[in-house]
């Protein structure tokens, strides 16, 4: 009886691990990133920044130097974009790629530049839309790394800044 139970339980456990394994492994990081994206689209900077680890490193490849820390990333990136494009939309294209702590997705970012940029550049009132990709690393439910890759030159041209 004991052996039978142990064997049956072991088989069932093994099977459930096998079936649940990949989905379970991919889920938590991708969910954090999806919630973070939703907060951006709700234009809720505080909520979006709530998904950052206190030590987050936010890298914009066209800037080249990462912004370090939750408060600096909120002010320097999220607040900056929400103020400059209060109608912004950040849409995921296709499905994300998720493996362990890492998540990547391709996106389209669009809006109208109705507000000033943090660096003092005045509002251009021009609409813009550009494609990009971001890579995230998530630890204990919080984003510790974000890296954004996009055509910044094309973006500045759309705003008439270049």
């Amino acid at each position, binding site marked *: 009886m004991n052996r039978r139970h142990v064997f049956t339980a072991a088989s069932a456990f093994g099977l459930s691990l096998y079936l649940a394994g990949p989905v379970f492994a991919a889920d938590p990081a991708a969910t954090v990133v999806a919630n973070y994206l939703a907060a951006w689209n709700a234009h809720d900077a505080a909520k979006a920044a709530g998904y950052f680890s206190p030590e987050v490193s936010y890298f914009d*490849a066209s800037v*080249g130097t990462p912004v370090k820390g939750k408060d600096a990333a909120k002010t320097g990136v999220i607040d900056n974009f929400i103020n400059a494009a209060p109608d912004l939309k950040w849409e995921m294209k296709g499905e994300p*790629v998720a493996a362990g702590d890492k998540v*990547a997705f391709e996106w389209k970012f669009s809006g109208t530049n109705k507000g000033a940029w943090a660096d003092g550049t005045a509002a251009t009132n021009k609409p813009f839309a550009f494609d*990009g*990709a971001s890579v995230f690393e998530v630890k204990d439910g919080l984003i510790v790394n974000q890296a954004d890759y*996009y055509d910044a030159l094309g973006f500045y041209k759309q705003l008439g800044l270049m």
Partner: protein
Amino acid sequence: MVCADPARKVHWCMRRRQVIVIAGVFIVAAVLAAGVSFAVRSSPSPALVIDAYIAAWNRQDAAGAAAYLAEDVVYFDASVGASVEGRQAVREQVIDNFMAAVPDGKWELTAPPFVQGDKASFQWRFTGTNTGEWGNGTPPSGVLVDVEGHTSSEIVDGKIVREADYYDPAAFFDGAP
């Protein structure tokens, strides 16, 4: 309980045990077989294909790089904004084009690629000097290119069926274009 019947006890309980053991063995075998077939189907792994593809680029081997592309590959460069379709078109418009314009171009990964099923993500740094003309007639800028980017790819049966590159092309120009 059936097992309580002294006349049938041994026989019946044996049968039940056998059924359970056979079912258990079957489940384990099915799990192993699924794992093995998955491993066989996904070989060579997308990570190996990416490494080999980049190595071919780095030895300026256009034919070698193109050999990792599927016949009907779709290549998207976000800064161009349109897709190039088909191995031969990608070879000419992307691989030959870059190798002619930046003959000493080097592609290195800045983080290990990660893979989910057929899809892979990798971050890179591209360096080199723009000493050659671009396919569209743009003359060389002489600029030392140093740019970081990201590639999303889909790799099926060892061939790249989709590649999408994201980077800031400002790095290819000398000052304001």
